[in-house]
């Protein structure tokens, strides 16, 4: 079986979580309290990170689809597999659409959206077909580059920052900040539930804890810092931009030569979006292979990738609808996939695991 190292898995996870949030931001809707919402989302997610890791460590070497069939039996397990296949396909399509809108708005104004989506889907299909070890190796090279770009941009934008923009703190009220925190929990942190379809390839039983917790903390730190930088540069206007990071780094001006640096954040976004959609496609293909009992998931990659691209094209009418869906609907839509099903699987797996332990001990005594 294909195995990836913990380092590769952490790199994939960080890039996956940065995904669209790197330009869209997180905890939007509460202006200069967005960083508190991000922090709240991160704190809310930590217990679930342990739940996901525990599920994976109980059934080491198996993916989510096998686990749900083992825990609930064939038919309920297949239903859960179909639901997660749908979720990964839908999430992949939403991320792809975000990227398509970003490219259309910022660079290729006259290029039809479908051309951008299909061009991008070609490399996603290639990555997903090549397997998780290739995505892992790409990630180990890509993550340092993304982190370097972000740190470099944050350092050179210090002159544009106005630190008093962070005040007044808690002006949005606890209820709105909590709602934004829940939004940050579901997008991006709890999307890592899809890694239950990837982490079968980890090397040891304790690896899931290490990978999920480390990956979440690194990406959380990066995203909260980025949110703070956006607040420092854009102030309360931060909510008025569809892509706040792009707008804030567009204001960098050092002398006459170091300006209009927003292209660099586009490079980071392309990398993180590529990894995120590749993982979504990979998990969707694994799900399809599991439902139909295929030996090789790769045969479904081209058609599933194309369906993902077409789905990305039809899913929203325009940018406004996309942002509205991401802010108002997505958090609730994702609850079953991110909270309910993992909790059900975890509880059932623990009960089954303990029963197995007791029977095992009785058999030993006899």
């Amino acid at each position, binding site marked *: 079986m294909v195995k990836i190292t913990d380092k590769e898995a952490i790199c994939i996870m960080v890039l996956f979580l940065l995904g669209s949030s790197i330009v869209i931001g997180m905890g939007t809707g509460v202006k200069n309290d967005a960083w508190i919402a991000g922090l709240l989302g991160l704190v809310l997610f930590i217990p679930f990170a342990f739940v996901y890791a525990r599920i994976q460590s109980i059934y080491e070497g198996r993916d989510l689809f096998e686990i749900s069939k083992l825990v609930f039996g064939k038919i309920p397990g297949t239903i859960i597999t179909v639901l997660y296949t749908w979720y990964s396909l839908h999430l992949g399509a939403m991320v792809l659409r975000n990227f398509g809108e970003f490219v259309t708005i910022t660079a290729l104004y006259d290029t039809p959206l479908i051309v951008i989506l299909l061009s991008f889907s070609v490399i996603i299909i290639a990555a997903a077909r090549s397997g998780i070890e290739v995505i892992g190796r790409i990630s180990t090279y890509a993550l340092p580059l993304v982190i370097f770009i972000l740190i470099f941009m944050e350092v050179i934008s210090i002159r544009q920052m106005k630190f008093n923009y962070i005040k007044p703190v808690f002006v949005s009220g606890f209820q709105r900040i909590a709602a934004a925190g829940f939004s940050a929990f579901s997008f991006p942190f709890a999307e890592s539930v899809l890694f239950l379809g990837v982490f079968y390839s980890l090397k040891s039983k304790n690896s899931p804890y290490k990978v999920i917790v480390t990956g979440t903390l690194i990406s959380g730190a990066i995203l909260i810092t980025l949110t703070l930088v956006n607040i420092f540069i854009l102030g309360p206007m931060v909510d008025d931009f569809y892509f706040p990071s792009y707008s804030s780094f567009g204001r960098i001006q050092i002398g006459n030569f170091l300006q209009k640096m927003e292209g660099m954040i586009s490079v980071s976004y392309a990398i993180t979006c590529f990894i995120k959609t590749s993982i979504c496609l990979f998990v969707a293909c694994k799900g399809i292979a599991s439902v139909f009992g295929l030996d090789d998931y790769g045969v479904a990659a081209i058609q599933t990738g*194309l369906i993902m691209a*077409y789905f990305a094209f039809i899913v929203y009418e325009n940018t406004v609808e996309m942002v509205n869906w991401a802010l108002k609907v997505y958090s609730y839509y994702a609850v079953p996939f991110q909270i309910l099903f993992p909790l059900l699987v975890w509880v059932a797996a623990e009960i089954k695991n303990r029963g197995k332990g007791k029977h095992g001990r009785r058999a030993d005594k006899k």
Partner: protein
Amino acid sequence: MFVLVIAGYVLLGIYEFVPLNKEKRWKEFYVNLALYLVSFVMAFMISVNVKVPSPAKPIEEVIYSIFGR
């Protein structure tokens, strides 16, 4: 535009199904064929500017009916 789509899918069909047919991997063949048909229908409808219904709207309605606007 739809001529391009048809030509593209014919080539894709040759690339995907000929090896599966030669290796007699029938399960993979039929699953891929089903996905191929779904993908082709979507591509064709987009190419002739037929509006394909998005699942986002019904999901949105269900969410609003449960949690309110």
